[in-house]
């Protein structure tokens, strides 16, 4: 066990994979100075500028080139800087990366990882704050990952790099500084199939299941703690991987608790919570004690001013209130 930040865990994961496999490389803007969140700090000194590649401001080319490089047998790790900028490279991700293997009848493999820092960070406003994970879950060919803890920041990134299909790897801007214990890893690290697609019961409980991911895992845990004082037992599931998602773990939990609240930072409407709610409502029809509820952002862009931003950013208090309401 070592205590480290989410940033450091992710940084080490990349460094270890690069040390292990010479075909792994990273590309993105300003990586040579450590990346804007420091998640690439010192990697250029270690691996050189040909493997930690500073790119022009050319998001389409960053992803498009990574597709070609992945097809040619390397494993590019693409840094998008801010998830919103990935919208400048959607053709490359959705029409090219996600479909190449299929369209070409299995001739191509596209083992690339697209790292996208998501979420609200104070005062970044509408064009730097989005969480669009639901979009990626809708696209055949993509794996979608969203670590919430330092341990997962490491293990899921490693698994993503080892995955032979394109992975959208969503790291939350507010989590970079989060410190927690990270189990010492053998370097013979995660097999993608054993790691991706597995949820984690972050806190066991009996009265209500909260399914969440990324930043809101922590707020949900805080809410669960508050509710414990009120005699309520809330199970918090950190989904970790959104596609494929761990239906077994979620369904088993909700079957037991009878109540499901899905919590995410993204806009509620057509968020990934809708998919979970639809699946669970169908699978456990007649066995739920309450309707499945979703707690997400209103369908509004993220505003700048603090009192406005507060209106669209979920907090532990929001989760607590929603859970309390469901528990009756």
């Amino acid at each position, binding site marked *: 066990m070592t205590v480290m930040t989410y940033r450091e865990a992710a940084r080490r994961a990349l460094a270890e994979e690069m040390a292990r496999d010479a075909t792994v490389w990273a590309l993105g*803007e*300003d990586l*040579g*100075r450590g990346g*804007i969140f420091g998640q690439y700090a010192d990697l250029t000194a270690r691996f050189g500028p040909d493997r930690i590649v*500073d*790119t*022009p*401001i*050319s*998001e*389409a080319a960053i992803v498009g080139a990574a597709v070609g490089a992945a097809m040619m047998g390397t494993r590019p790790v693409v840094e998008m800087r801010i998830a*919103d*900028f990935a919208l*400048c490279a959607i053709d490359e991700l959705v029409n090219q990366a996600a479909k190449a293997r299929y369209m070409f009848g299995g001739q191509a493999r596209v083992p690339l990882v697209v790292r996208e820092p998501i979420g609200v960070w*104070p*005062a*970044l*406003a*509408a*064009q*730097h704050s989005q969480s669009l994970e639901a979009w990626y879950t809708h696209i055949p060919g993509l794996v979608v990952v969203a670590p919430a803890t330092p341990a997962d920041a490491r293990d899921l990134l490693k698994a993503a790099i080892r995955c032979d299909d394109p992975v959208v790897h969503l790291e939350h801007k507010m989590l970079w500084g989060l410190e927690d214990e990270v189990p010492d890893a053998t370097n013979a690290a995660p097999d993608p199939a054993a790691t991706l697609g597995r949820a984690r019961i972050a806190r066991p409980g009996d009265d209500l299941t909260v399914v969440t991911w990324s930043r809101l895992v922590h707020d949900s845990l805080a809410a669960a703690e508050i509710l414990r004082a009120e005699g309520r037992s809330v199970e918090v599931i950190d989904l970790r991987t959104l596609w494929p998602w761990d239906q077994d773990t979620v369904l088993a939990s909700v079957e037991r608790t009878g109540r499901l609240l899905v919590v995410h930072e993204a806009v*509620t*409407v057509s968020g990934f919570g809708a998919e979970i709610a639809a699946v669970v409502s169908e699978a456990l029809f007649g066995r739920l004690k309450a309707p499945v509820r979703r*707690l997400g*952002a*209103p*369908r*509004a*862009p993220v*505003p*700048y*001013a*603090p*009192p*406005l*931003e*507060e*209106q*669209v950013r*979920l907090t532990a208090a*929001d989760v607590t*209130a*929603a859970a309390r*309401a469901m528990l009756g």
Partner: protein
Amino acid sequence: MTEPDAAPRRNVDTERLMGLLSEMARIRAFEETAVAALESGLYPGFIHPSIGQEAVPVGVCAHLTEADPLLSTHRGHGHTMAKGATPTGMMCELFGRASGVCGGKGGSMHIADFRVGMLGANGVVGANILIAAGAAHALKVKGETGRVVACFFGDGAINRGPFLEGLNWARTFDLPVLFVCEENGFAATTRTGVLTAGDGPAARAESLGIPSLTVDGNDIQAVDEAAAVLVGAIRRGEGPRFLLAHTYRLTGHTSMDAAGYRPEGEAEERWTRDPISRCAERLRQAGVAETAIAAVIRSAEEEIEAALETAKDAPWPAPEAAFTDVQDLGAPVPTRPGGLAR
């Protein structure tokens, strides 16, 4: 045409130059005040100061009226003020107040002041180039002649696809756009020279059929003169033009960036070419009294000081404002208490 500054200037219109100095000083005062206010924790986030680059927007906007739309960038305070916006609305916006020019919803990266034709900063590098082309296309559709759209962007933006698509578009449809590339040597922490192939912004524009001028962007008179030529041609209906202005970002990329990636002495050396000092020096040489120059600068500082005081006391937006101006149909419905809006 390069570096018209190289040759000594024949005559200086001191009145005009005093006006330009004043505009630059206002921007400088705004940026310095905004940085200091941010560092004191008076508002959240960060800003991209344009300290050192003031001559470009001031020289260009001297040839624009409020009827001429302008599209700006993340580093847009200078463009906005040069376009005629009052600093108070912008300062209040930085402070996230209801009286901010965007009601507190945009912040520094999304400043806009439609009253003076400033149609928006942009948080996405290069995106404004296409919007500018389209704003000009609207003038064509509406049959309006004589108006000019100005579009500012950095030397990093020329590596994004919209640069190609927007310039090709403007030339193809012969639209009245002035593209202004502020070559400050950096894209965030990266030297733009290293990641820009070929002969740079102007060569690319020329390859797209857009005539260009290249100037020392720290020489306000050079910018002023070049803008006069280019804007004049555009107004006469000759189609788009390109201005490449060499300048330097005297601060870090953001107010939080110490710019440790710059070799020691570089910024210091560049400060000696600060456009405001150079302008003041030229005025002195033209016989303008030191007191007159100081008065202009002092007055700029006072104006910004007043804007700051207004912003400090300005009321916050009402929480419900988070849900307005999303869209008319299907807008979110506020439901607090008991949860957020849906």
